[in-house]
């Protein structure tokens, strides 16, 4: 059976969730990706990816308590499931396998 591999954005999302856990909610996840990659992350795109990942059983979410600073709206905290962690590892292994033995990539960047 083929392993579940992630798209680049899904991989970034899952890595960000791992990096900012247990405070992995929309703004923190988006900020972490923006800080690490310099890529602007739309919250709508992040939530769409997170919902897809949740539907596939790679992340789970719980709703926190509502806070006045957020206009009485709660935070939705995400965490990786064991299946999500396995998908991250599988993707890393697949990418590493493709990286190996490419002379152009062994040269130092100037």
């Amino acid at each position, binding site marked *: 059976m083929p392993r579940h591999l992630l798209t680049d954005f899904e991989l970034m999302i899952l890595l960000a969730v791992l990096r900012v856990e247990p405070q992995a909610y929309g703004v923190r996840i988006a900020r972490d990706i923006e800080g690490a990659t310099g890529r602007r992350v739309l*919250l*709508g795109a992040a939530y769409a990816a997170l919902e897809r990942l949740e539907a596939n059983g790679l992340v789970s979410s719980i709703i926190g308590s*509502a*806070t006045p600073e*957020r206009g009485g*709206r709660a935070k939705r905290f995400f965490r990786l499931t064991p299946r999500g962690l396995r998908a991250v590892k599988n993707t890393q292994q697949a990418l590493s396998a493709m990286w190996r033995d490419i002379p152009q990539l062994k040269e130092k960047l100037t």
Partner: protein
Amino acid sequence: MTRRQPPRFALALLERLVPGSTCMAGDLIERYEQRASRWGIWGEVLAAIAIEWVHRTDEIRPLRLVDLQPADAIERTRRFGRRGSTINLTGSPVYGIGGLGIAILLPLMTLVMPAAWGLFIGSIVVGILLGVVMISMRRKRLG
């Protein structure tokens, strides 16, 4: 110190048009408090609505006329946790605009662009004709 007021209409639009977006609205308020501009929030909201419309999944048989549904439809409905599609009976194809919206729009159209009435009535006639043709073709095919 006074707190910045996020664009409330944008947030209301988001929560109205994107189901289950309350937490995202909270995130947008937090983002706005930190650094984002009003235009930035509007951009986020419009992008979220566009993404929702692109990725919207509907059940294959929204009317639930039969108990036996394709396994795929049941699975998709379960996975995305969506409720069955509702039928729009408001006389308006635009979600959230009902009879009152139409009652406001029609006099406005008469005032601003009366020529549009021709297009409006023409589209109704063409729609009815198209419906009649489709029904008769389907009846003929089913014998």
